[in-house]
Each structure stands twice: as structure tokens, then as C-alpha cells.
């Protein structure tokens, strides 16, 4: 199977280049990650992140034939040849398919991604009804892979000011939690021409999310709450 892979090692290359690979696959190689491991067996200098190989750790996000996705759950059979692989767009490249995610995590941290509840803790669990708990479905499952944010034009232009879809999805995850008491503070934190309102509902993020989550809907809900608050 044929591949064209973005290669760049700042230790020796002046500038990035696409390199071609033709690799013989094993019948057991089902996913793109399997093929990348094969390639790495031939050329140990190919650098990428990977860990769980089942789509739950969020390590191996990359741009695959123009679309962001996780290599480990992208079926080879579904890919057009030569398969073009590039690092996630819009983030600084460290090497080959490895990007610098610090800005992405900084935005995640900026929404205070933890439950805030200052009541004295009860002896047992805090109660939450199954209905209240359902509000968290489609939110808590995020694996912080950055497929969404790096597919978002607004994020490309303002990665330092716009929280981006991943961070906003998590902001809403805590707003939606019946146990969290900081909704007002969380909304204050987002009421800003850049942090939230750079989102123009283009929906690239929904398209890109390998976990089928819907950041646009979460962003819409935050916007609704802000509107409700002002009337």
C-alpha cells in the first residue's frame, strides 16, 4: 500500500518534505496505525505518538487524506491511495507527525476543567438522578485528541484567544453537571468576543470528532445560557 507522509526533523532537515512509502501489509493489518507500525519497522526515524490502539487515549490524531482522525481506528480499506498523512493542522510541528499541543491544553485548562462545589462533602456520594446524569452523555467522553480544534478555522486564527471546540465542550460538561455550582463564574469566564464568540457554527469540529461528539451543540447551549442570563 502506498503512503505519502509529512517528514520533518528540525535536528537535520532544513524544511519539511513529503516522503513516499510503499509497504507490504500483513493480512492482520486492519487499521492505519498498523500500517504506520510496519513503516516504522523499515524506517525507524518516522515519529508519531500512539498508545492504546483502540481510540480511547487520543494520542494518534493526524490529518489523513485531508481529514483529521485517529490512525488506530481508521480502517485501511476505507483509504484512497496514496494515503496522505500530515500532522494536525495549525499547531507547531515538533517532528514528523508530532505536534506541540501546549496551546491546546492551555485552552482546556483555562475553562477550569474540574467540578466546583464548595458545600461540605457528604459522608457518601452526592445524589444525582439518572436524568441529570444523562446530561453529561456526549460530553464527558472527550479524549482530548484535538481533532476538532485543529479543524476549526476560528481556532487556527486565534489559538491563543479562542477556547476552541474541545475546551468549550468541556466547559459545558461542567455547566451541565447538576453537582457543579459555578455556572455563573463559568459563563463570566466565557463571555468575551474571542473566548466563546469566535465560533461561527461552521461545524467542522463535529465532522472531525472521532468519538462522534458534538461541540457545536454544546457551544450553542452555552450561548443560549448567556442570552437567558441577560434577559
Amino acid at each position: 500500500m502506498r503512503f505519502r507522509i509529512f517528514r520533518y526533523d528540525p535536528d537535520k532537515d532544513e524544511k519539511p518534505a513529503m516522503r513516499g512509502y510503499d509497504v507490504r501489509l500483513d493480512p492482520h493489518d486492519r487499521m492505519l496505525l498498523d500500517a504506520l507500525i510496519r513503516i516504522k519497522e523499515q524506517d525507524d526515524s518516522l515519529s508519531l505518538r500512539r498508545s492504546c490502539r483502540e481510540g480511547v487515549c487520543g494520542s494518534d490524531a493526524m490529518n489523513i487524506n485531508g481529514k483529521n482522525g485517529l490512525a488506530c481506528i481508521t480502517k485501511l480499506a476505507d483509504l484512497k491511495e496514496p494515503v496522505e498523512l500530515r500532522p494536525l493542522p495549525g499547531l507547531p510541528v515538533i517532528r514528523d507527525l508530532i505536534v506541540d499541543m501546549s496551546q491546546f491544553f492551555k485552552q482546556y485548562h483555562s475553562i477550569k476543567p474540574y467540578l466546583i462545589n464548595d458545600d461540605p462533602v457528604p459522608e457518601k456520594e452526592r445524589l444525582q438522578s439518572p436524568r441529570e446524569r444523562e446530561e453529561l452523555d456526549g460530553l464527558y467522553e472527550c479524549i482530548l485528541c484535538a481533532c476538532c480544534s485543529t479543524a476549526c478555522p476560528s481556532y487556527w486564527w486565534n489559538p491563543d484567544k479562542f477556547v476552541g471546540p474541545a475546551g468549550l465542550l468541556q466547559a459545558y460538561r461542567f455547566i451541565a453537571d447538576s453537582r457543579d455550582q459555578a455556572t455563573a463564574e463559568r459563563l463570566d469566564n466565557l463571555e468575551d468576543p474571542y473566548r466563546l464568540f469566535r465560533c461561527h457554527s461552521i461545524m467542522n469540529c463535529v465532522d472531525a470528532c472521532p468519538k462522534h461528539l458534538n461541540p457545536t451543540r454544546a457551544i450553542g447551549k452555552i450561548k443560549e445560557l448567556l442570552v437567558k442570563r441577560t434577559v
Partner: protein
Amino acid sequence: MALAKRSFDAVVVGAGGAGLRAALQLSESGLSVAVLSKVFPTRSHTVAAQGGIGAALGNMDEDSWLWHMYDTVKGSDWLGDQDAIEFMCREAPKLVYELEHFGMPFDRNENGTVYQRPFGGHSQNFGERPVQRSCCAADRTGHAMLHTLYQRNVRAHTQFFVEWMALDLVRDSSGQVLGVTALEMETGEVMILNARATLFATGGAGRIFWSTTNAFICTGDGLGMAARAGIPLEDMEFWQFHPTGVAGAGVLITEGVRGEGGYLLNKNGERFMERYAPNLKDLASRDIVSRAMATEIKEGRGAGPHGDYLLLKLDHLGPEVIDKRLPGIREISKKFANIDPVKDPIPVVPTVHYMMGGIPANYLGEVVVPQGGNPEAVVPGFYAAGECACASVHGANRLGTNSLTDLLVFGKAAAESMIKFLKENPGRKDLPKDAAERTLSRLARLDNQKNGESVAEVATEMRRTMQSHCGVFRFPDTLAEGVKKIRGIADRASRTQIKDKSRVFNTARLEALELDNLVEVARASMVSAEARKESRGAHDRSDQYKDGDRLEYKPVHMKPLTARTIEPKVRTY
């Protein structure tokens, strides 16, 4: 060459469930802490845990920590330490509540309490009937738990060293541990992280086998570092084969499927577990179910064109239950087995899953070694928790859900022991002159090696050897041959060659360094398996000790902290 050095009160190696729970305790107590991880914390393999956390909350039916303790001791085939097991089962409810307070999105019952599901080997009233003890968030419990713990650490301003790989333990001549050497992946820089107390929480090592539910990063680094520093490993022959890995892919299908009512079938459509475990059936402990499956396959009742797998049926649960309680399983089955479990059974085989052995520790998380006449002398400044440690609560066979419990309980306990140690031992000892010597020579060897084999070649051979010589059923002659082979492979691993010499994020170098740890674990496992001539828990061999040649092992603690000893008896389910 002198290395740059940074100093902390505590260094935690590993940011999975155990490392993060410990880090939280340390950060909140105001100490200076460095937490190292090969990957961003939420990418640690705890993220893949599916089925749940074991704790006797009693939300579904009556339950008690004593029953949980009994089940764990019995599950361990009486090889677990009863003091540590009591400690874990008593602390578990408190730590699960605490996790809930941190924001963990547990599933809920109508009355608002945490939902619990049945799991293998967990029973009511000392083995009478299954009990619902596994606290879960759908089939994404590990993900929910790891993210919650990470989030709580963000709140506590824990200092992370992300994508830093610890390479070797630093010990002085008295044996005290003074930190680690570590490599920053992005820059290739190597440093000494000097600590007054060091915790290993580096997770499992399933990657020594060909087929495993473990992630690529589960390479047993903590065990490798400990062994190279002269610390013997414990119970390494005990590897858990999980009954239900997706055939051909290795990806896990949680036991929660059987907890929710799924069951196993052979090619004749027979529910064969009724023959092997008439009481708990498909919810017997994992060693029993995996052996039953291997027997079915061996005796020609496996399904599929080659008769080499069995079928896990769950369509009778209906799409609502499957989508609500097991959504991740449906996703995995579609992706990795090409079937939709709402309609068809999942092809499954016993797959290497969990390492019961590890770095020997007591229930306080302190690492212990034999010294003089004392089989359990504490190594000052050194702690271990989670899958890399052997506390030992899992003995010869771990019960499902007990690892996540172990991470919380012993992660916290180890941190508390460290806090106490730091208070009682305020000074900082000098680093030995040769603190980084082992690391530097390993790195120099890799940089200069010529005409060596590739890392991938040697690793492949190791995995195949472990798989074929150290499987579900073990035989004296294949084990003896396995020992010879694995020693040869360890030798070859010390001569591997990498082509990539870049300083920047050199993953070839990382994989070579990981191989050093893998072979350490593989060798220990094979040698221990060859040496233990009895069948116990997950270790099944066709022969028995002959009179008089029984080995002397580290004594099992039969005396619990407060409860009465659970006396050994024949294990049936």
C-alpha cells in the same frame, strides 16, 4: 559527563490512576512534587479500563467489605496478603465516594446513588450468589476516572513533566533511593531528578506478549528500572489472561458484558461455563473462565473456520441496555470484529491482560526487599503503587474491578507514607558520584552500536516466545526451553541498533530503551514460571513439586489487620 539536576521533595513516575491519586495527595500537602509521564496524563492506560471499580457500597443489594475481602482472598488462590486485602476492601468505599466528590460521572440508580454491576468472582455472603459491586460509568469507567483525577490535579496545581521518560533509579551505597534519571522526549535532554521520596506508578507490561489488551506504552519500565537497581521482583509467573479479548485484535471486551447478562457459547451453541462453574457460571473468576475456554478450544469445540475462538452472546440484552451500559463495546465490536453485538455474538479468546506480580511492596506502599534474615526490609525513599507494584492484593489471580480499587487505595496510601517519611527525614542526602552512570552507558551504547539487530526484530521474537512458552497452560519442557530462549533474547536486546540518531522526539531510541525493560520483565516471568512447580490461580502447569524441592517464597501474610484469617480451601465457583 555531569548531568543537569533538579531537586524535589517527591518524584512520582507515572500519571495513570495510581500516579495521579498519589500526586493529588502530595500536591495538596504542599510538597514540591514532579510527576513524570511518558504520555500526557489522560493518555495513560488506565483510560482503557471499562468495567468498573470494586467497592462494597451496597447500593444494589446488601454488601460488606468482609465479603469483598473473602472474594479477593479466594480469587487470589490464597496467595494475596490478607492484611493488604483487608486494607483495600475497607478503604474502597471511602475512596469511591471521594472520587464521586471529585466529579466522576458515575452511572446512577433511580434514587440517585452510584449504579453497580455484577462482576466475576464477586459474591454475597462468602460465595453464595453474585453481588453487584462494580461502580461504573457505562463501559468507560477508566476514562472517566483518569480524567476526573487529572482534573482534580489541575485544580491542585500539580507539576507535570509530560513526555518525560524515567530511565533508571538512583540509589546510594546504603540502598536508599534518591530519585531517577529521565529523558525529555522533545529535546532529548537527560537529567537527574533528585527526590527525597520516589514513587513508581508505571503500570503494566502486557507488551511482553504477542497478543494483549495492553497499550503500546505498557512496557514495564518501573520493573525494569527496579530490577536493574538490584530489587527482586515478586510473583512474576502470574499473568492474567482475560477471557474476552477480541479474537485476532487483542482489544478488550469487558467482563461487564457478562455482568450485565451476556454469556459464552462454544461452536455447538452450548453455554459451557455451566459445566465448569455451576454456581457462578460465566461470572466465575478469570483464571477459571480462561482455562475453560482454552479447554473448549483444545477439545475441538471452538467456533470459527479454524475453531480457535468462542462466542460472547449479548444480543438478548436488547439495544437499549447495550447502548446505555455498553456503548463502547458496541463501538469496539463494529471496528475490530466487524460485527454488531446487537445482532451477532462477538468472537473472543483469552488474552493477556494484567500482571499480578511486580515490585514487592507492603500495604503502605513501601517497597520491600529481602535483607539479612528479614524477607521484607523497607527500601528507604522508595514506594510503588498500582499495576507495577505487588502489594500483594491480587495474589495468583486478580478479580475484575480490583485493579482500579488498588490504584485509588494504594496510590493514596503510598503518598501518605511518603509524606510521613519526608517529615521524619528532613535532610537531603548527597547523590552518589556515579548516580547517572548506568543511564549514560545505556545511551552511549545505543548511539555507538554497530551491526546490531533492529529493536522491532528482537521485540517480535520476545513476544512470540512469551506467547508460545508461557500461555494459559504451561508445561515443564516448553518452560525450560522458554527460559533458554528468553535469556538469549535478553542478550540480543543488549546489542540492538537504531538508525535514527536525532535528538528531537526520537521514538526509535525510546523503543530501544523500553525493550531493556520489557526483556527484564519477560525474563523474570519465564524464569519464575519455570521455577514454580504447582498450579495456582493463573499459573497452570501439568506437573507438581516433588517431595522436598519446594522453593522458599516470600511468606504470604495470612493474618489480616483486624478480621479473622480466611483459611485456604478448595476453590470452586
